[in-house]
């Protein structure tokens, strides 16, 4: 049997912030405990590429000092957080899980980092990922794979596998990830945590190392919906340094989750169930868990509506044209000239480029760069890239039409729970199919969340995915919280305290 809540040792972010703000706890002590848990447990999962105690401890002391000096407590006062290593930080390194950026130190902080620190958050380290966020299993990290805290023979999902595992293993209550085609939601589902991808433009991408710029979005990994809302509130909002961030009001998402706000909400809620998300590839245990979740909503008084997203079968092909095209251009800058890995003895400038890149990039990154270069080439551009943009529009139209009939969409996050290491490594297409239910949402630019909704017989978590229209974060979080409040899946933690 699964062990019930071993979280006693790690409070939620909301609780920590409240305690620190009230002076009941010191940020330094909270930080010390988090660093201790990482030291103790992380060697088994290797969620972190780099832990930065020398940076974190003084920051925590600073939070305490500011509070002692009478400054108002930030919403994340004293909360330890982990950062996916494709988000630029002036502390530690920013490697993107790639050899080509081994040892790279960013001279600037991503906007989200500045916002978190301004809110009193204490950053304790950088988490592992598939190289440049390209992958669904974390096996594409150039350094080492992170292991799933529920079963170390299984992948944590990717690409934000390190952040998901860090939260699942109770190392930190909150972490940042990035989601280009499911890279937050999939590992959240595999690791049994809450993973949220906001609307494209909701959170500044400044300082997020680009993979597929028109799809990338920074989001949150948390132990519960309220914590996810807390962090989202801090990182949301327009940024003058990101032209694609949108000037749209930022509600206090936590306030929107209060019981009073939720009262009566369920009875008016229309939940769309897309037929395409319950097709042949869906494993029966996952199907059963998701259907049970729909029953919970119905029991609460919500109405479920059959909807259709007819272009879903084209989503993966479309995604792999748009994302790889952008990736081939975004990763052109890693050339050994200005920073990052440089080959030891280049014969000439062309050799400097090709050898540095050949040595620095892993197989999957090379595969995508080549695919993208091909898709954008003269003669193929129209047939691939331009056509993909047209289909992308159709996919977005599908969602728009579906949301005329419902407030949120619900379905599985992934067709299966976490798979074993090596299982799909030799078959990139099978690996790509892991993202089949998450990818379309990125193409549509809409927000989505994965929340725990059960476990497989082998004890692996199953994720329920909810999706909302553009800037529908409030209803998305509310719907997630309605379910969470009725269930205890999210309270389960892997038996990590041996």
């Amino acid at each position, binding site marked *: 049997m699964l062990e019930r809540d071993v979280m006693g040792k790690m409070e939620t972010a909301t609780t920590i912030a409240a305690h620190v703000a009230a002076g009941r706890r010191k940020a330094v002590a909270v930080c010390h405990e988090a660093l201790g848990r990482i030291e103790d447990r992380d060697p088994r999962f290797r969620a972190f590429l780099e832990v930065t105690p020398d940076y974190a401890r003084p920051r925590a002391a600073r939070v305490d000092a500011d509070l002692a000096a009478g400054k108002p407590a930030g919403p994340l006062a004293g909360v330890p957080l982990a950062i996916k290593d494709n988000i630029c930080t002036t502390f530690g390194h920013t490697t993107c899980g790639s050899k080509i950026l081994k040892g790279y130190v960013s001279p600037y902080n991503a906007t989200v980092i500045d916002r978190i620190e301004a809110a009193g958050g204490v950053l304790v380290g950088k988490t592992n990922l598939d190289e440049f966020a390209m992958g669904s299993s974390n096996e594409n990290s150039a350094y080492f794979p992170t292991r799933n805290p529920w079963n170390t023979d299984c992948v944590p999902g990717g690409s934000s596998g390190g952040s998901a595992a860090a939260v699942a293993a109770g190392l930190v209550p909150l972490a940042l990830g990035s989601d280009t085609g499911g890279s937050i939601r999939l590992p959240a589902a595999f690791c049994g945590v809450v993973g949220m991808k906001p609307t494209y433009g909701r959170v500044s991408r400044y300082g997020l190392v680009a993979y597929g710029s028109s799809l990338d979005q920074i989001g949150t990994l948390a132990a519960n919906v309220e914590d996810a809302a807390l962090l989202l509130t801090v990182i949301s909002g327009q940024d003058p340094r990101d032209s694609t961030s949108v000037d749209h009001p930022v509600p206090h998402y936590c306030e929107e989750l209060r019981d009073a706000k939720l009262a009566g909400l369920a009875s008016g809620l229309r939940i769309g169930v897309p037929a395409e998300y319950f097709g042949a590839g869906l494993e029966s245990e996952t199907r059963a868990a998701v259907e049970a979740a729909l029953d919970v909503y119905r029991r609460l008084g919500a109405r479920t509506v059959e909807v259709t997203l007819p272009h879903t079968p084209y989503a993966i092909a479309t995604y792999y044209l748009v994302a790889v095209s952008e990736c081939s251009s975004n990763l*052109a*800058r890693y050339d050994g000239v200005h920073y990052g890995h440089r080959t030891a003895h280049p014969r000439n400038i062309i050799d400097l480029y090709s050898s540095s890149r050949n040595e620095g990039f892993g197989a999957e990154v090379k595969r995508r760069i080549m695919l993208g*270069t091909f898709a954008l080439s003269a003669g193929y551009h129209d047939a691939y890239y331009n056509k993909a943009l047209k289909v992308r529009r159709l996919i977005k139209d599908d969602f728009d039409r579906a949301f005329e009939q419902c407030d949120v969409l619900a379905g599985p996050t992934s067709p299966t729970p976490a798979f074993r290491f090596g299982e799909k490594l030799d078959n990139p297409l099978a690996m790509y199919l892991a993202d089949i239910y998450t990818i379309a949402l990125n193409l549509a630019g809409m927000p989505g969340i994965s929340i725990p909704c059960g476990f497989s017989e082998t004890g692996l978590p199953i994720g329920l995915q909810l999706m909302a229209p553009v800037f529908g974060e409030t209803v998305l979080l509310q719907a997630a919280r309605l379910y969470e409040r009725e269930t205890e899946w999210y309270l389960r933690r892997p038996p990590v305290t041996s």
Partner: protein
Amino acid sequence: MININGLAVEPIIGLEIHVQLATRTKMWCGCKRAFGAEPNSRVCPVCLGLPGALPVMNRRAVELAVRTALALNCRTAGFTTWDRKSYYYPDLPKNYQISQYDRPLSYGGVFEFPFANRISRVRIIRAHLEEDAGKNVHDFPGCSAVDLNRAGTPLLEIVSEPELHSADQTREFAVQLHRLVRYLGVSEANMQEGQMRFEPNINLRILKDGEIYTTPIVEVKNLNSFRALHGAVACEITRQVEGWQETGVVATTGNKSNRGWDDEREATVAQREKEEAHDYRYFPDPDLVPLELDEAWVAELKEHMPELPIPRTERFISEYKVPASDAPALVDDRATADLLDQAAEFGGDKSTLAKHFLSFWARHANERGTPIADLGISSKHLAELARLQCEGTINATATAQVADQMIARVAHRFSGGGHESSSESEHPAEAKLSPRAIAEQLGVLQSRDEDQIATWVEQALASNQKAVQDAISNQKKLKAARGFLTGQVMTISGGQADPKMVGALIEEKLAEIGQSKV
């Protein structure tokens, strides 16, 4: 058609022009634009292309680009996009350049300029915005370095139709365009600093035995002076004729080539890299949002367009009665031309005013290495000086003297002898610069007091009886005698008598004397 080596040849020349825009900061970041700064001192994560950095469009660059486009009679696109142009080069930190591909900011313009006593009309295909690259520096033994200060500088690329037909005409087009962008204030267009660069594409139509042969197109890269531009085009015309005579090779798709310009040998030279069908893999930059140009805003920019140099030159020739060859000297510097127009508004003879600009004001400006507009003389005083001369209050020599004094006093004032005042009312310091006051102090005002002049005339006649006699009695000697007497009056008056009045009074007196003799 021109005749070269016995062949009828028509050169066909198009021009690509890159103009660095005079914004305060770069195209996508807040770094200051600067020439000659310490290498890599004007850089930030954005223009260094560091991981995670994102571009943010410089609105001012768009404004300057639109103003240029309007002056080139281009249509502006309501909706324009940014595209990535991919190629690997060490001075291009992202290994793509943010440019505009299929939706340029402006297109379909035309530029007209006088050339060889006619109006040349060259259509403009497009003018779009992009970012400049950095510079590769090869000053170090055994390695190359990159200076990225220039990377991300806003660049306007203007592409003309191939509608130029000689080296002279191509240079004139470039000269006029250079004058235009400086006039609009959209670029300093300093050629030595590479702020304006030309890339002509040249080929020939050769007529032989009733057949037309077209030579392969050659693009000459990165020309930094009018001289190089002219030389490159002239050289290519000769080279291509000779090349065709030797090989008979004509243009096909794919045999376009790039050449460079060797300043010392004064010849174009083959460039090592082939123009192997470059695939730039353009696609819309997902980091930037498409730009919608507000029609009202564009209309407002159009309304505030200054009078452009070419129409202004024509107006100056007719209004100020200046020779066509001198007009550009008045028009070239916009502030100076504006000053001339402002001075003319005070009334008076425009031609005299323009002559002053072309003579002593130009000399003073030259000596100080500034345009006339920066001499510090107000339009009011410029007009007053011209009026004094026109009315005969001072003569030409005195006018130049007064001007010298005005300059000397301005210099004194600017060196701390007074203080600057921009107020309309005449400040005491300003009053000291008044040409009339200066003329008075110098004692060069011409007397127009009839009684005074009459006295001087009488004195002169009285002491020069011989000349008076000659004038009255000998028709042949009349003119010489009158001139001599006038000179005497001027001497007596110390140069202050108005020569016109002196002449009239002498004539009157001589007539009186002649009458009384009869």
